[in-house]
């Protein structure tokens, strides 16, 4: 088992004919992902690396059972593409694009909630389940190894950095999710934890966080409420990042004291999460977490 992405997960690639999408489609196929269709208006009938292309998501869904879609669609047009996939009944979306307009992201997430779908991203390299040989997105698969650790991360490159160290020490992963770096993302840490809790293969979870936002604090609350029983360890970046200047009061009213590094560290420590202060500490802490 892993979460979200499995051997049997049939995948659609939206925008498959673009240069980057072609390249990543090839990599995903090579890793073992079951890509059954691509879509691109006007490109129906073509093939990309042997994958049939359809004019619309609905057409692709009429010809194949599709469980997930990876969107290689620019941020400026991603709202329509995401709604197209959700309306066609696809329950798992990976939105790679970064800088999706907030008002578009809000519309996408509302529709996601209504349809009880899962969205990874925006602004994510995607997710990978090494035991299932399945990767959705453009995660550099060679740094990953099958194993018992679940990873949820806000940062792509930081994930590669830390996971490659785990892999080098023989500590494999069940599923690694880049939840996304945009301000609004589809899957928050707390939700990722709930999914990992149910997976028998996952024995411990690594959260890779950053300064800002409130995902880390929410995760801490969920752990403290007992919603997540497995050991959790974490690394956060941004202890010394210069703080942004704020404007208006609304942000402060909503955020309260959350978002700062002090707030995150306090919340996670309070919930019994082991914190790696430096990237080099991650391996030892992972070992301790697995022993628990």
């Amino acid at each position, binding site marked *: 088992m892993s979460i979200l992405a499995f051997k049997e997960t049939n995948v659609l690639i939206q925008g498959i004919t673009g240069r980057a999408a072609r390249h990543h489609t090839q990599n995903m196929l090579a890793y073992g992902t079951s890509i059954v269709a691509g879509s691109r208006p006007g490109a129906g009938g073509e093939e990309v690396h042997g994958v049939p292309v359809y004019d619309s998501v609905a057409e692709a869904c009429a010809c194949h059972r599709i469980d997930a879609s990876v969107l290689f669609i620019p941020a400026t047009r991603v709202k329509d593409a995401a709604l197209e996939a959700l309306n066609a009944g696809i329950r798992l979306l990976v939105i790679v694009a970064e800088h999706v307009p*907030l008002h578009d992201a*809000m519309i996408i997430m509302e529709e996601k909630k209504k349809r009880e779908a899962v969205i990874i991203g925006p602004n994510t*390299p995607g997710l990978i389940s090494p035991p299932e040989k399945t990767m959705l997105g453009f995660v*550099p698969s060679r740094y990953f190894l099958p194993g018992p650790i679940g990873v949820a991360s806000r940062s792509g490159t*930081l994930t590669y950095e830390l996971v490659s160290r785990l892999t080098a020490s023989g500590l494999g992963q069940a599923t690694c999710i880049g939840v996304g770096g945009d301000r609004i993302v589809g899957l928050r840490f707390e939700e990722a934890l709930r999914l990992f809790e149910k997976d028998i293969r996952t024995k411990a979870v690594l959260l890779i966080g*950053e300064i800002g936002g409130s995902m880390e604090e929410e995760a801490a609350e969920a752990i403290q409420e007992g919603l997540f029983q497995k050991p959790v360890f974490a690394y956060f970046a941004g202890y010394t990042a210069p703080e942004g200047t704020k404007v208006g009061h*609304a942000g402060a009213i909503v955020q309260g004291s959350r978002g700062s590094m002090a707030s995150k560290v306090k919340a996670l420590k309070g919930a019994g999460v082991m914190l790696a202060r430096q*990237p080099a500490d991650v391996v030892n802490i992972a070992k301790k977490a697995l022993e628990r």
Partner: protein
Amino acid sequence: MRIYEYETKELFKEVGIVVPMSGLAQTPEHVREVAMKLNTPVILKPQTMLKARGKAGLIVSANYPEDAAQASKSIFGREYYGEIIDTILVEEMVDHRSELYLGVIVDYASGQPLVITSSAGGVEIEKTALEHPELLTKVSVSPSKGLSEDEATSLAKGIVGEIEQPASALVEDFKDTILSLYQLFTQYDCEMVEINPLGIKDDLSTVALDAALVVDHDALFRQPQLVRCRGLKEEDFQREKDYRDRGWTYLQMEGDIGILSSGAGITMAILDLMQAKGGRPANFLDTAQMDREGIYDAFRLFYHQRSIKTVLVNIFAGLNRCDDLAEGIRDFIKDHPLPFALVVRMVGNREEEGRSILKAIGITPISGLEEAVYQAIALTKEK
């Protein structure tokens, strides 16, 4: 992206939110002229990107045009968070009996707009939010349906009930203001828009005394009328635009080590590691996607900064390729003798090819992150 108070108030007028009479002034003489035209006591409000001007003593009132002109002399030319004050909004002083708070913001956690109202408006609203959360009302709105007439009415009734006898005219006025503000929020892709305070006048009508608005910078492509250089010199504005187009995040700091890295998370991790060991970052450039030309241009940025003693390049090539980037570095060094020490950390796609390209020009790439950071610090100390 922030816009100025006077620009926000222009947008308010478009959607029917009442604002005080006013005029803009660039000189004390202008201030006098505007104050004469208004023919009322006035408030002088310097137009700056950052607020909290009142607490900084930058907002003053004057009863007569001469006094206003005189007072403005000590405000023009002053610096506020790096911005030189060159424009003052001269506004009629509005008598009002109470101050409300009204804001709409994108709540990242819920992924929904949040309308916030309070009967305790004014500069202390943040403190109020912490100490007396019961004085604030927050309502989540469906982004696709928008704020309904009923939701706005119930917000208005709630807030008016706290301060006045439920006067129906005031409820109506407040409801319209909430709806107009929400319309503005969606129409202009706002991340946040707020009126604080919203004054209630003796005749029980409302007036937006101050205004703040942040446009979502990721939506600027469809808000061309809002894209102007605000509080920035033309060249700084062009540079910011160029960086945005390239997908660069650049931040100037005060040390002597330049950092070129890809990905915000890893870049912050480098800052943490460096500062823990006493290294001082001069700046950092985080590039989402780097290629041969991109890294060449990025090097130019460090090349022109004299304070930089060492540049640390961190490449973890997932999307991109080490050899491509190594060629970009080689191109640059061929054209420019380096005025700084260079530490390259390189792993990922086509790592071996990249390493041999760099070795051929005398640079030995490092594969450990900590090792690279510590070497950059050591080289800087030697210089």
